[in-house]
C-alpha cells in the first residue's frame, strides 16, 4: 500500500488544481474561437477537466485504505 500521507497530499493537489483549472486566468488559455467536431474548444476543455477530476479521485480513493468507522456507540434503533 502506498504511503497514506502521499495519497492525501495527492488528493489535495487534485482538488486545488481542479479549482485553478476552472477559473481565469487558466481557463482563458483554452477559450479560443475554434471548434472540434463542431463543438467549441472550451466545452471540450471543461468537460475534459471534469472527467479527469472524476477519474483522478476514483484512482486516488481506491489506493487509499478504508478507515474504521468512527462511532463507538452504534447500535440503537
Amino acid at each position, binding site marked *: 500500500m502506498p504511503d497514506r500521507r502521499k495519497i*492525501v497530499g495527492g*488528493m*489535495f493537489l*487534485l*482538488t486545488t488544481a*481542479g*479549482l485553478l483549472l*476552472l*477559473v*481565469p486566468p487558466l*481557463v*482563458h488559455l483554452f*477559450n479560443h*474561437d475554434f*471548434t472540434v*467536431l*463542431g*463543438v*467549441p474548444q*472550451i*466545452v471540450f476543455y*471543461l*468537460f475534459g477537466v*471534469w*472527467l479527469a*477530476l*472524476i*477519474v*483522478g*479521485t*476514483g484512482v486516488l*480513493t481506491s489506493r*487509499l485504505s*478504508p*478507515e474504521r*468507522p*468512527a*462511532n*463507538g*456507540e452504534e447500535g*440503537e*434503533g
Partner: protein
Amino acid sequence: MLSADFVIATAIAYVGLLFVLAYFGDRRAKANKRSWLNSPAVYTLSISVYCTSWTFYGAVGNAARSGLEFLTIYLGPTIVFVGWYFLLRRLVRISHLYRITSVADLLSSRFGKSSRLGVLVTCIAVIGIAPYIALQLKAVTSSIQAVAGSSEFGQGSLKGIDDVGLALGVAAGMALFTILFGTRHVDAKEQHHGVVAAIAFEAVVKLTALVAVGVFVVFIGGGFEGIFSQAAAKGIVMDTSTSFDSRWLTTLALSIAAIVCLPRQFQVTVVENSDENHLRIAGWAFPAYMLLMSIFILPIAIYGLTVMPEGSNPDMFALTLPLAAGQNGLALFAFIGGFSSATSMIILESIALSIMVSNHIIMPLVLRFSPPQYGDGQGVSRVLLVARRFSIMLILSLGFFYFFFTRDSDALAPIGLISFTAIAQFFPALLAAIFWKDASLKAVSMAILLGFVFWAWCCFLPSFDSVSPAVSQLLLEGPWGISWLRPEAMFGLEGWDPLAHAAFWSLSVNILTLTLGSLITTPSALERIQATAFVDVFRRPNLPQRNFLPGSATANDLYFVAERVLGEQRAAALFESAARDSGVDPIGFEPTPEFVGRLERELAGSIGAASAHVMLSKVVAGSDVSLEEMMQMADETQQVIVYSQELEKTSAELRTTAQKLEDANAQLRELDSQKDEFLSQVSHEVRTPMTSIRSFSEILLDGHSLDDTQRQRFVSTIHQESLRLTKLLDEILDLSALERGERNWQSQPVDADAALDRALSVCDALLRQKGMRVDHGDRAGPTMVEGDPDRLCQVFINLISNAVKYNDAAEPVVRITSALRSGNFVVEVADNGPGISKGERKLIFEKFSRGQRGAIDQAGAGLGLAISRQIVKRMKGTLDLAPSPLPGACFRLRLPVIRG
C-alpha cells in the same frame, strides 16, 4: 396524445409509487440494518437530490440564455466532492459523534450549544430557501402548462385555473405528501431510510429522462456537430469570450458553499450517511452523475434555440422539443423526470427545514413554557411531529408566496441563485466551526446576521423589482434618495452583475466580521470545549463528553426527561442497557456523568444539541456556573496533565535504563576482578614451571658432577613442565580462536550419543583414580546432530572431568543421562559435589572463571566451560546449568537433532 388530465393523473400515480417505495424502504431498513439501502450507490444517488428542476429545466434555459454559466453549478460541487477527504469526511465524522441533525444544529452545537444561533440560522434558512421552493413550484406549473398548452384536448379540468391556482394545488399536494412521507416518526439520528430510497429512485428517473431527451435531440439534430452547425447557420453562436467573468467565479463559489450548506444537502450527505466509507464512492460517483446530467444540456438548449419558434420558453425545451416532434411518450417521460427532480427537492428540503424549525424554534419554546407532562408515554415526540408538520406547511406556503409575488419573472436559474447566496452565508461559519478553534459565538452570529442583511438588501429585495414599483424606485434611486445605498450599487460599486455584487458584499462583510470579531472576543468555556471537540475530531481519542457534575441528578429525574423526548420504549431501553453495562439492577441504577453525557447526545439526536442541553441542565443540579468554572480549569489543566504524564513515562524509562546499566556495570566489574585474579593465577602458573625449568636447566649447564640418572630426571621434569605450559597456552589460543570463529571447523552429521560414550571411556581412568561411581541414567540411543565429532567429545570430557575434579564428597557419584526432547538431543551431567553457589552461576561460563573451591587445588586455567560453551554455540545448541537431581551441580547440553 397527451391531455392535461392524463398528465396530472400520471404525476399522482408516480407520487403513489414513490410512497410505496418509501414505505417498503422503511420496513426493510427496520427489519435489516445492512440492506441495500445502506449501500454507497443509494447514498450517492440520494446526494443527487442536488439536481432539481433547476437542472432539469433551468439549466437548459440558462444555457440558452447565458452559454456555459450553467456548468459552474455542477463544477463547484465537483470540487467539493473531489476534496471529500478534507471537508465532507470531517463533517460526517463530527456529525456522527455528536448526533448533529442539521446545519443549524452543527453551528449551535459548536458555538457553545447556543439556542440563539440555532434560531438565527433556522430563520435565515427558511427565508433563504423560499425562492428555491418557488422555483420548483414554478417549474412544475410551467411544465404542466407546457404539456396542456400543446394538447389538442385542450386544458381539460385545468380550464379556468391559472398558474397561481395550479401552483397552489401543487404546493398543497407536496405539503400533504411530505407530511405523509417524512414525519411519521421521530428518529434517533434523524435518518429517513424510506425517503432516501424514494429519492434515490427519483435520481435514476430524472437522469434517465434527461439522457433520453438528450439522446433523442442529438439523434434528430444529426449529432453534436450537426446541432452546432445548424445553429451556426441560423446565426446562433455561443459566445464564450465573456463567459469567464466575475459571474463565473461567483456562481462557482456559491455552488461550492451550497452543496455543503443547503439544508437538504447537509441532510443527505452528512446526517443520512450511515457509513463514512460511502464518501469514498460518492467522491467520484456524484461528480460523474452530474457530468452525465450536464452532457446533453448544451445540445438541447442549442437545438431548441435553432428549431423552436421565436419567443418560446427555453426553460421548457426538454419538454417542448419531444412534444414538437410528436414524441408524446418521450414528452411524458421528460415530464415525469422534471417532476421527479422537483418533488425530491421539495420533500427533502422541507423535511430538513422542518427538523431545524422544530428543534431550534418550537422545541425551546415548548421547553420553556409548557409544564412537564409525564407519563403519556409518547413524550415530546408527538409535539415534535406536530411541530414538523406545521413547519412543512409554513415552508411550502413561504415558497408559494414568493412564487405568487415574483410570478412574472420568467427564468428559473436566477431564482435559485438568490437562495444559494442566502445559504452561502453559513459557509464561512461552517468552515470556521470545524477548522478554527478561536471562532467565537458572538462573531459568528454577527457575521451571519450581517451577511443575511446584505443578502436581503442586495439580492432578495431586487427580485421583487418587476412586481413592485416601490422596489424599482428603490433600485434606481436608493432609500430616501441616498444613492450609495442602492441595493445593486452599494457604496457606489456600479456596473457589476447584480448577483456578483450581492455575493461580494454579503460574503465579504460576513467573513470580515467573523474573523475580526473572533479576534476581539473571548469564547466561553463551553464554546472552547466544543471547539476542541470539533476541530480536533481526528486528533484526540474520542473521550466521552462529561458536561455535568457527577451525583447531582437522580435516575428518576433523568428518566422522566428521556421519556418525554424519546418515548417510553426507547428511554427504558437506554436506561436498561446502561444499568446492564455498569452491572447493576435497573432499579438501583445510579447515573454516572458518562451516562448523562450519552443521554444528552441521544436527546440531541431528537431535539438538537441546544435544546437537549437546556433540558438536562434543568434536572442536573450544579450545572452551568460551576460547570463553566470547572471546565475552564479543566481546559488548562488538561494540557498540563498530559504533559506531566509524558514526563512520568519518560522518567520511568530512564530509570529502567539506568538500572540495566548498573547491572551491566556490576557484571563488568566482577569479570574484571576475575580476570585480574586469573591473570595473576596464570602468571603464577606460568612462573612455577618456568622457575623449575630455569633452575633445572642452570644445574644441567653447570653440572659436571651429575650422573646420567640425575641428568635424565632433570630433563624429563623440564619436559613435563614445558608440556604444562604448552597446554595452558593452547587452551587460551583455542578459546580466542573459537570466539573469533577462525578455527578449522568440521561440520558433519555426528552420532551424539556415541560421542558421549567415547567421552566416558576417555574419562574412565580419571574416574577410577578418584573412585567415582558413574550412575548411568536413561540414554537416547543413536541420535544424529550437526557438528564436529572431536569437539563434541571435548565438551563431554570437559563436563565429566569437571564433575570429577570438583567433587569432594566421600562417595563421589556422577550421573549421566541423555534424552530426546522436542527435537533436541539433551544431555545432563550431574554430580553430588559441592554445587555452584548462587553468586557464581552467572560467571561460571565466563572466561578465566573457576569454581571457588577449585581455585584451591585445581591447576586448570578456568577456560574449559568457556570453550565448551563456544563449541556448543557453534553447533547451534545451548549449555546451561539445570536443577540437579543430585545434591551437586548439573549441566544440561541441548543440541538440535537433524531431521530425515
